[in-house]
């Protein structure tokens, strides 16, 4: 029940953000449409005529309302399908499996239909020869001149273009992980972020439209007769034999037609991409700020709370909770890396780790001794999803008990009251309220993965097929291993900033007790990461793909993690310097730490 309530809370906040983003997208639709109308009527020879177009008919108003409906639908789909942990297909067959997934099929169908609707609106707005699907004509050779309805192929070609572009957009979305929401390197205000990325969206929409229209023309040239005949049959229209058919070379080489197709496709993609962009900006706004990494960096008063002792008893509950969660998260990653490395070493082939469930089992089965000593005795800690740590950090006051189901150790002494005090300032300032909830996004990914058993079996079959063939995509397994590393990066930054600040701010020596385990955990992780980067494909840089709306941040997360880890260790060693020699640790760790103290890593 608690789970249910919690989900509702989480849904409420992200839904509000999504609704706000959709509202902005709908508001922006008007100027975008105006620009589209001006561009579509632009004629090179009569530039003045562009602005003296026909008055808006009732159809145009109706089409605008329809467009709003489409935008809302796109926004809804964004909300339904987004994820912060990308699904990375480890082989080409797995990718194919993703594309043929029933859910994806529904998605594509929806995009097709929305494409047709937008294209119809475009056709109506363009007017002229595109306006209706049928027109009265006199068929035959003059003897039998009864008025009939003939098919307007210009209208049809535009509608089908919309369907094609919508369909290809949904396929590309899967391939380039367009639903993946990444976190920006720097925090900016929404308006500035929007303004900054607008030119890029225009450029990439126009380019994508160009490629889609090119592909569409080829398809229409060869297969255009099928929908044409079908439409004629169902709507009881006739083909006007006196008009040149469009699925011929001469018909398709009509420059004005090409231009209108392209501008309609750009309009369609631009409105959708703008909706996506607004959604991303709204959902991730000030998300990282509430995260412990940035708070520990920017807010001395909050740090003071961390270093404080509980009033009766004098236990550093706040710090214990934070350090324990971060360390378990890091130990989890270490285990995953060690397990992966073992699999590669023994079988000679990597076990693909693209689902959360499987990842858990892998860390369960191979329980290495390396991290055992520094972990708490409860092995359940290791099985947590990264989401739990964020759930713990940001327990907002109104629903702090609600996050409990996500943390296995319900009986732990550091239950919510201690953390509530820590996070209390959050609730006081209203713009931050939404951010309290936002880490729940992290929980979304497991939810997305939990497909029905039938589908999972299918996916696993597909995966086993891919894993032993040469269809494997190189470095994809390495990407999948680090797919959720944003959480680890934040944990590392948060821990290291807190430890750095503790050098001058920690009055009670709260950090000192955990310093050995923090250092040990980081050094073990450093060793595991180093070993991982010695594997083939792990250290190869992915090709930078600047085009498209897809976010490729997940491809480089492992490099970011490696750099952050090193920086985190250096942050601690430069702050403490030779004082670290007094810290208890194993000889091997001391040797490794000495390298850092001498700046030789």
């Amino acid at each position, binding site marked *: 029940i608690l789970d249910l309530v919690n989900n509702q809370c989480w849904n409420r906040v992200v839904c509000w953000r999504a609704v706000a983003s959709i509202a902005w997208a709908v508001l922006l639709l008007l100027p975008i449409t105006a620009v589209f109308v001006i561009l579509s009527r632009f004629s090179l020879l009569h530039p003045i005529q562009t602005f003296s177009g026909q008055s808006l008919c009732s159809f145009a108003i109706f089409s605008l309302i329809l467009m709003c409906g489409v935008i809302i639908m796109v926004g809804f789909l964004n909300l339904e399908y987004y994820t912060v942990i990308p699904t990375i297909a480890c082989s080409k067959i797995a990718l194919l499996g993703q594309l043929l997934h029933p859910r994806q099929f529904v998605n594509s169908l929806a995009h097709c239909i929305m494409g047709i609707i937008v294209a119809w609106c475009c056709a109506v707005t363009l007017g002229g020869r595109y306006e209706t699907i049928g027109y009265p004509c006199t068929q035959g050779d003059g003897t039998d001149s009864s008025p009939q309805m003939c098919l307007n192929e210009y209208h049809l070609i535009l509608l089908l273009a919309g369907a094609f572009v919508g369909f290809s957009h949904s396929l590309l979305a899967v391939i380039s992980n367009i639903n993946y929401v990444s976190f920006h390197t720097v925090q900016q205000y929404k308006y*500035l972020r929007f303004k*900054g990325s607008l030119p890029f969206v225009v450029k990439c929409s126009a380019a994508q439209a160009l490629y889609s229209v090119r592909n569409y023309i080829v398809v229409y040239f060869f297969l255009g007769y099928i929908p044409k005949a079908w439409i004629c049959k169902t709507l009881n229209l006739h083909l006007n034999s006196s008009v040149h058919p469009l699925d011929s070379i001469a018909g398709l080489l009509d420059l004005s037609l090409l231009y209108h197709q392209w501008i309609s496709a750009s309009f369609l993609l631009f409105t959708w991409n703008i909706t996506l962009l607004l959604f991303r900006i709204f959902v991730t706004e000030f998300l990282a700020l509430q995260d412990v990494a940035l708070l520990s960096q920017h807010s001395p008063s909050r740090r003071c709370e961390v270093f404080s002792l509980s009033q009766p008893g004098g236990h550093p509950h706040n710090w214990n909770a934070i350090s324990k969660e971060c360390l378990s998260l890091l130990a989890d990653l270490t285990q995953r890396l060690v397990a992966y490395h073992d699999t590669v070493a023994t079988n000679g082939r990597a076990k693909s780790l693209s689902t959360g469930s499987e990842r858990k089992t892998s860390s369960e089965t191979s329980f290495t001794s390396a991290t055992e000593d520094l972990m708490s005795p409860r092995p359940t800690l290791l099985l947590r999803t990264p989401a739990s740590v964020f759930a713990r950090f940001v327990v907002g006051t109104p629903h702090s008990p609600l996050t409990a189901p996500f943390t296995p150790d319900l009986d732990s002494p550091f239950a919510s009251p201690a953390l509530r005090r820590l996070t209390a300032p959050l609730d006081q300032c209203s713009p931050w309220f939404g951010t309290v909830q936002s880490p729940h996004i992290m929980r979304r990914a497991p939810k997305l993965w939990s497909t029905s058993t039938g589908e999972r079996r299918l996916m696993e079959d597909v995966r086993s097929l891919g894993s032993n063939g040469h269809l494997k995509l190189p470095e994809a397994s390495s990407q999948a291993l680090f797919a959720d590393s944003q959480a680890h990066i934040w944990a590392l930054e948060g821990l290291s900033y807190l430890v750095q600040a503790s050098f001058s701010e920690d009055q009670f020596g709260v950090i000192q007790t955990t310093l050995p385990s923090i250092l040990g955990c980081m050094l073990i992780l450093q060793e595991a990461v180093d070993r991982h980067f010695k594997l083939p494909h792990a250290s190869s840089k992915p090709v930078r793909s600047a085009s498209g709306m897809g976010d490729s941040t997940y491809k480089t997360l492992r490099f970011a993690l490696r750099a952050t880890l090193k*920086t985190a260790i250096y942050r601690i060693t*430069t702050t403490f310097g030779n004082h670290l020699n007094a810290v208890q640790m194993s000889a091997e760790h001391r040797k490794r730490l000495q390298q850092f103290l001498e*700046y030789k890593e």
Partner: protein
Amino acid sequence: MCSLALFPAPLACGQTTLCESNNELLSGTATDHRLKQDSSPLSLYFPRESLKLHCRTESSSKAAFLDHSETLWMRSAAAWRDGGLTGLLNEITNSNTEVPKWLSVSSGFTLALLRWFSSFHGSLFPHLTMSSENMLAEFSQVLNWSDCVVRAFAWHPHADKFAVALLDDSIKIYNPKSATTPTLKHRLQRSVAAVQWKPMCASALAVACQNCLLVWHVDPCSLSTRPSSGCAQVLSNPGHSPVTSIAWSPSGSLLVSASPMDTAMMVWDVASESCVPLQRVGGGGVTFLSWSPDSSHVLASTPSALFRVWETRTWTCERWPCVKGRCQSGCWSPDGSRLLFTVQGEMVIYVLTFGDTPAGVPTCTSKGPQAAAVVADLSETTFNTADGDIIVGGEIHSLSWDPTGERLAVLLEGDPQAADRPAIIAVFKTRTNPIFELLPCGFVQGEPGAEPRMMQFHPNFQHGALLTVCWSSGRITHVPFYFLGAGVPHFGLSGSPSLPRPQERPADFANQSLFTELIS
């Protein structure tokens, strides 16, 4: 507030500044100096003759090959690749015998239109018409950059090593504890304008080049003297070249870069090679960046009379228009609360004070100073020395504040044509706590004929401050300033620097305050 008159007179010819001890700058003859310096491993000398220079640029290699007639298509493709749209239009216009007349005429017309437009744009921002070499020389923090043997210098923020970029586009890394001096060379490493080591890291070195940014990863344990170009990450963004200034965040997580050609300054996540452009209208580019030591603000100056101060939490900026010229240089106090800057065409140093509010909102937005205050006037002053009159003062090329906040070095441009107006480094004593104060210290001079070109303080010198100066002769010397910092507790006599101290204390001018916040 004529401040240079309070300085001790410059040294006579043949004398060089050795160090500061007991509130006094000690000098010696050049030969003594050289003997002493040559024994220390960190003093370097790069004679101009020892460097092999590039005599030609890459694009001019075309002339070395036989003319080969290609089809128009091939030439157009090559022109598009090399010169972009302008190159393509140029090629079509020039080969008017092979293309239809309307095409060549229309491309010629478009080209003329483009040129007219760019000249119009250039008249708004004159620096856009410069070649990239001239632009680098104009906006570099190095005096007379194009003629300088040592083009960039950077101490490592934690370890005792430094990187030197030379005229032949190579970078050498010197470490007194290691026998190897790695030399970094890369195909794209041309016209190095700045180098900086990544904080909280032992190995990463960012290099601002003509066409891109390079981040070298030089393994300190490696014995290789020529790390392969695979050790370098190339960060580039279309339109973002030449890069004239770079700055790492003090926490080592972000890198910002600036180009006078690009109105956006780039914030790089180096590990993932992704960048976020921070664009603002106005200014026409970004020339110089400086990150405050507490990582809360970034100074970004533009080629026009305007500079910006960004706060780094939400990356918003405030505009500071200048009256006369562009902001030439700037430096932050160690606690990040004060920004000293100089303006081209003026002979004064300004200060801006930022509040310690947690949100990083400077005081000027509330009720603090609405304008910058003048802290030092460095207008020309004539000194009578044994070798005749020497005029010191004028425009300021760069500023450098030592990490303890006790010494401020100012590189004065001088006049290269006039022999009696040399470029010189003036050093001030500063105090930031409890109030900001400036006191004269002295001039730092090198051997005869050598002018200072660039200077940098050692980031963690134990006994005070260590100023590293790169001279026009290709020599790099280190001038230590021995003092006990105000923040350092005095441990009796054992903490005092172990240098021969003269008995007489010429404290006449040393205690005259030039600027304090009390009187201003």
